[in-house]
C-alpha cells in the first residue's frame, strides 16, 4: 500500500478490490490499537522464547543481545506474553506513562 486507505478514491481501486501486492499487510500499523505495552525486565529474562512462541501477531523477534523484544509497530498490547512469561519478566504498562 503506497498510501493510507483513507486517501484512495473509488476510481483507483482494482477490479474486485483485489490486493495485487502480496504481503502488504506488513505495512499495516496494528501497533496503534494498544493501550498497554509489554516492558521487559532483562534481569528476570531467561531467554526461553515463550513470549515469541505465544505472541499471536508474531510481533516478537530476537535482538542482537539475545533478548526477545516486541516490535511495537505490530504489538496490539494483548498481554499474552506477560501472562505466559515463566519468570514474570514482562509487565504490561500504560503507553502514556512512558512519556
Amino acid at each position: 500500500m503506497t498510501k493510507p486507505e483513507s486517501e484512495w478514491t473509488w476510481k483507483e481501486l482494482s477490479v474486485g478490490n483485489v490486493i495485487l501486492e502480496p504481503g502488504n499487510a506488513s505495512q499495516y500499523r496494528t501497533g496503534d490499537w494498544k493501550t498497554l505495552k509489554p516492558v521487559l525486565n532483562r534481569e528476570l529474562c531467561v531467554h526461553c522464547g515463550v513470549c515469541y512462541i505465544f505472541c499471536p501477531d508474531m510481533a516478537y523477534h530476537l535482538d542482537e543481545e539475545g533478548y526477545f523484544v516486541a516490535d511495537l509497530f505490530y504489538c496490539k498490547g494483548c498481554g499474552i506474553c506477560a501472562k505466559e512469561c515463566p519468570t514474570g519478566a514482562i509487565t504490561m504498562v500504560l503507553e502514556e506513562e512512558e512519556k
Partner: protein
Amino acid sequence: MGKRVGMEVSIAAAEAVKQANVDVISAYPITPQTHIVEHLSELVANGELDAEFFCVESEHSALSVCVGAAATGARTFTCTSSQGLVLMSEITYITSGLRLPVLMILANRTISAPLSIWNDHSDAMSIRDCGWIQFFVENGQEVYDHVFVSYRLAEDREVLFPVIINMDGFILSHVIEPVELIGQEKIDQFLPPYQPLHQLHPDHPITMGAFALPSIFAEAKKAQEVALRSSLPKIIETWKAFGEMTGRYYNPIETYQAEDADTLLVTMGSFGETASVAVDKMREGGRSAGLVKIRLWRPFPFEAFKNATLGAKRLVVIDRAISAGACGPVASEVKAALYGETKKPSIYNFVAGISGRDVTPSDFIKMVDKAEIEIEKGNQEGFETYGVRE
C-alpha cells in the same frame, strides 16, 4: 440456420452449458432446477463434457465452489431454485463484490411458507440487490441463447460480473419446446476461452476478499455500482453481436403492439408470451392495448423503459412476487423510473400467478378491465392480488 429440435427446456439449458465449454459445475439438486444439473452430471460422467462436477452438501457450498473456481480462472456454472437460492444468498453478494463471472440459471420457484414447489419470482426478488446482472427470459430458445450471451458478457474485462438467467420453473423448465441449436464452431467463435483479469495462482500471489474498513468501504461499493451500471451498453453490444450471428436480436425492454397503445401491460418472464395473446385479442376487439416486457432486470434499463412507456395513458404492471408490506417489486421499480416525468401514465399493479397458479390470456384481459375501472375511480393504492377468492 441452426438445427431446430424439440427438447425439454432444461435439457436445452444444459446443452448450452456444455457448448459453452464450462470448466466447473457445482450444484445441489432442488426442484424445478433438477433436470438441468442432472443432465450436466450425465454429460460429465459419460465424457461428453470435460469439466469438474462438484457434488456438494448445500447450495451455500455450491456457489462457494463456483467462487473459488472462478477465482482461479475457471468458467463456472451453478443452478438453483427457491430455498436453495435463499441458502446461497450470502455468497451471491460475495460473487459480485469479487467481480467473478459465474453464471447461474435460476429456475424460479416460490419461497416457503406455505411450502410450494411451483413457480413465481419470490426467489429472484429475495436477491434483487445482490449486484449480479439479472435477465428474465420468456421461452426455451431465450434460455439457450442467454447462456452464451451471459458468459461472453460476464467475462468481458469491461464488465466482470456474475449473471443470473431467470427462467420460470415448470412453466419453462419442464416443457418441450422447439429450440434452434447453434453449431459448435459458431459458439467457439462467439465465446472465446475465459481470460481472467486477476486470478489466484501460486506463482503470482494476490488477495481476494480482503477486509475493508469504513474508510474505504464506500469507495469500493461506488466502484462496483458504477461498473454494474456501465455494463448496460456492453449488454446491448453483446446482444447485437449475438443477433448478427443467429438472427435473434434481444433488447433490455421488449415491446409488442406498444407504440400507439393507451394501455400497456408490463410483464417479466414467461408471462410475456401469454400476455401477447391477450393483446392480440384486445386489439381484435378494437382496444388500444400493448405489451412491455422487461428482459433486463438489473442493471435496470431506465431510459429504455421510459421510452417504451411514456406515450401510454396507463400501465398495468403484473408482478409474480410480493414485496411484503409494500406492493409488487416490479411496480415499485416502474414507479421510481417514471417519478421524475411530468407527463406519465397512471399505474395499476397486480400480483398474479404466485406459486404457479395459471394466468391465461383472459386473465390478462380481466386485469386490464379492472385496472381501467380502478384508475378511472382514482384508486390511489393501485395494488391488489389478482384472482384471490373472497
